[in-house]
């Protein structure tokens, strides 16, 4: 379908909405035979990702996740139709609970919609990307936002009532495409800048920006924030946060009991549903599944060869060939910068404490925290080194999404520093995380295999040999 103009009803959001309404009718658990039947009915692009999700190792959690996302999409669409409510398109580097604290506000997250389109629709997101290119948008923009926004630009898709732009200072590509859509589609935009200065002075300015931003949203949504509703939302966020840290701890066991794809589910949940009971249910389900696997010693490969922290993001156009393929070869995906989001508990004692907590959450949100800092490399190195040590990782991978000019500009330093501080080797890949045309799965798999076989495994053997030698020396041998 790629290359066709987008016609009414063929927008990315509209197609996703139709699909998730079907998913919402699916049983909470499916037998292998039912999965087999379902997969036969799906077009090829969709089938590969749904097949990955419906793997028996985590099928129930996948269905729960898909239904959570399904309810989120449907409610966003319905909120947009309700004259009393406002559906606001937010970027991934913005906590959705900032909008959920408004009774009448509803956040739809741009990059999550792109990922849904890429992973669930036939033809993935290519036609919407191509549409944006046809308008003259440069091909080095970020597909994570340009695919969904390209669909909006076609004028044939669901249109949000406002946009939030929260990347000025942290990501030019994200900020500019949001600005363009706001201008061309005449959608109001609310801008929240994060000052690069990370100390008290920068945080104070950010709080002032945040108060101005909330006041603008109150005017637009037509609702003054209600302390009681804020508390309800933020306590639900706290419950999910508590489970997040239980979940985090489970990653430390080796072999890792957490399925690779749960990393994606973590930020899918964080970016869409934090502050809703759905997020609590999803986090709990992932914790329980991982605990059961830990207790049973389940691991899908003979042994865990590589414990790998992904320094930035992953690839989202082929779940089967990416998350599951790695897991079945003993390569554990120990989170990435997005799933290592380290949410904070909100102090819900007063309206002011909650507002300050929300401002802090925006300030420390993944990617904004690192790339929006004084130094793009310093916090990134610090955070990732800590996670590598904490998780007992033996390697790290940078996916090299080409549009990430900030990470691309400092990865040379970051690779060296991480290697120096933690001793783990870092593989730098290159590809578009949402568009398969740039680097196909097979190439990524070859590079990963080569890295694991020739660097990680050998390093592990060398390390073990050296330990044995030291032991022999200690024993006088």
């Amino acid at each position, binding site marked *: 379908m790629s290359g066709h103009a987008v016609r009414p009803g063929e927008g990315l959001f509209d197609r996703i909405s139709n699909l998730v309404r079907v998913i919402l009718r699916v049983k909470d658990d499916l037998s292998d035979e039912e999965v087999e039947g379902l997969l036969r009915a799906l077009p090829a692009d969709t089938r590969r990702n749904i097949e990955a999700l419906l793997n028996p190792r985590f099928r129930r959690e996948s269905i729960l996740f898909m239904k959570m996302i399904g309810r989120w999409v449907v409610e966003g669409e319905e909120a947009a139709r309700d004259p009393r409510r406002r559906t606001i398109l937010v970027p991934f580097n913005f906590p959705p609970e900032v909008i959920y604290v408004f009774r009448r506000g509803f956040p739809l997250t741009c990059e999550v919609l792109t990922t849904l389109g890429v992973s669930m629709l036939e033809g993935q997101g290519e036609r919407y990307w191509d549409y944006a290119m046809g308008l003259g948008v440069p091909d080095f*923009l970020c597909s994570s936002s340009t695919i969904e926004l390209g669909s909006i630009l076609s004028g044939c898709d669901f249109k949000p009532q406002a946009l939030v732009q929260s990347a000025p200072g942290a990501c030019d590509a994200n900020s500019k495409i949001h600005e363009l859509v706001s201008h061309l589609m005449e959608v109001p935009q609310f801008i929240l800048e994060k000052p690069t200065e990370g100390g008290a002075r920068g945080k104070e300015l950010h709080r002032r920006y945040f108060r101005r931003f909330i006041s603008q949203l109150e005017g637009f949504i037509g609702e003054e924030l209600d302390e009681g509703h804020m508390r309800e939302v933020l306590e639900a966020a706290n419950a999910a946060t508590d489970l997040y840290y239980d979940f985090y701890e489970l990653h430390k066991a080796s072999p890792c009991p957490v399925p690779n794809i749960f990393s994606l589910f973590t930020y899918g949940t964080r970016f869409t549903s934090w502050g809703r009971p759905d997020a609590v249910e999803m986090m709990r389900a992932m914790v329980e599944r991982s605990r059961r696997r830990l207790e049973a010693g389940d691991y899908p490969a003979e042994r865990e060869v590589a414990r790998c922290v992904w320094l930035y993001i992953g690839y989202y156009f082929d779940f089967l060939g990416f998350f599951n393929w790695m897991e079945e070869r003993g390569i554990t995906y120990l989170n990435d910068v997005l799933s290592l989001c380290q949410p904070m508990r909100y102090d819900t004692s007063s309206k002011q404490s909650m507002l300050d907590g929300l401002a802090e959450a925006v300030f420390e949100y993944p990617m904004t925290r690192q790339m929006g800092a004084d130094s793009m490399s310093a916090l990134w190195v610090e955070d990732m080194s800590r996670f590598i040590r904490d998780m007992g990782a033996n390697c790290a991978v940078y996916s090299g999404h080409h549009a990430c*000019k*900030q990470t*691309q500009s400092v990865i040379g330093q970051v690779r060296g520093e991480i290697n120096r501080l933690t001793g783990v080797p870092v593989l730098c890949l290159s590809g578009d995380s949402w568009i398969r045309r740039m680097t196909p799965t097979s190439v990524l798999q070859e590079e990963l295999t080569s890295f694991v076989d020739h660097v990680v495994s050998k390093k592990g053997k060398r390390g073990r040999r050296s330990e044995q030698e030291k032991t022999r020396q200690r024993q006088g041998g």
Partner: protein
Amino acid sequence: MMDLKKLASELPNRYVEEARERGTKIIGYACLATPREVFDAGGFFPYRIRGMSVTRTELADAWLSRFNCGFCRSCLQLALEGAYDFFDGLVETNGCDHLRGMFENWQYAHPRDFFHYIRVPHLTNQDSMDWFVEELELLKEALEKHFEVSITEEDLLAAMSLQGDIADKLRRVYESRWGDEVRVSGGEILALMTLEGSAPAEDFSRLLDEVLAEYPSRPPLKYRARLMLGGSATDEIELVSELESVGGAVVADSFCFGGRIFRGEEPLDGPPLRRLAHRYLYNLMCPRMFDDYARRKAFIDDLIERSRPDGVVLFHNKFCDLHGVENVKLRMDLEKQGVPVLTLEKEYGAAADIGRLKTRVQAFLERLGK
């Protein structure tokens, strides 16, 4: 006229040599958001970092990736080769993601003793303005402390006054192309504008006096069409000259190495740093500023109205998100107004790209019926 292009292509140039002999401290900066008056007031020589159309970037590529803009990679290459070792200090601004990366790698791989970061807001409102005033105060304090100098209000006012005179003179040369007869080429103007950032204020003022005395006696240039240029950081003098060689006289531009140097008037009252902060923040005309498109568009409309180009050529350097997206909206808006627009993506400094770009401009001139 003296060979401005030659003078602008020297690194280091004669002004740097003279400053070194005098013992003047030279501070490197890259972005128009850096108020050079603060350096002038302290007796420094603020030198604006350029890529000098360098295309061999193997040293820089070890740090920045091939997905970063060529301008920043070229600047970093020169830094790592030692071409900017005459700097006594370096001042970073968060102009764009690439520029941040360039500075971060520069300071990591080839550090300067004095390094200061001016954090420029992306919005124009009272909170941002107050912040930027503080940032300029911090810059002043950092310079005073490290170099043991004192920068007084009187020094600042004198520097602002001198820069005001320079802007008046520069404007006279720049706007001389706005009549029917064009006597100074776009390439020469770009050379002059880049020299604004690579000569001490007094020297540049004297250079402008020479130019003003000389250009009116030159014969008018022959051209097929009048062009305005705009887009990403462009200090590629040869590129502009080559494009003019096919018959397009460049009569105006909105480059940060060009027309954007003429910042608006500063407020007449208030402490000097506040006046400077206002003037710089509200007149950057750079797509890094958000919620500010209307002001940028008005700036370009004004340039078009006064310089009367037959068409506008908008460039973006490969991987420049800011201008790459901005140019989409600008093209649409200008075309709606009936202004012919050509948008071109260029690889910074690449001589190999010039042939392709010339062909596109030739075709554009034909489209203009010229």
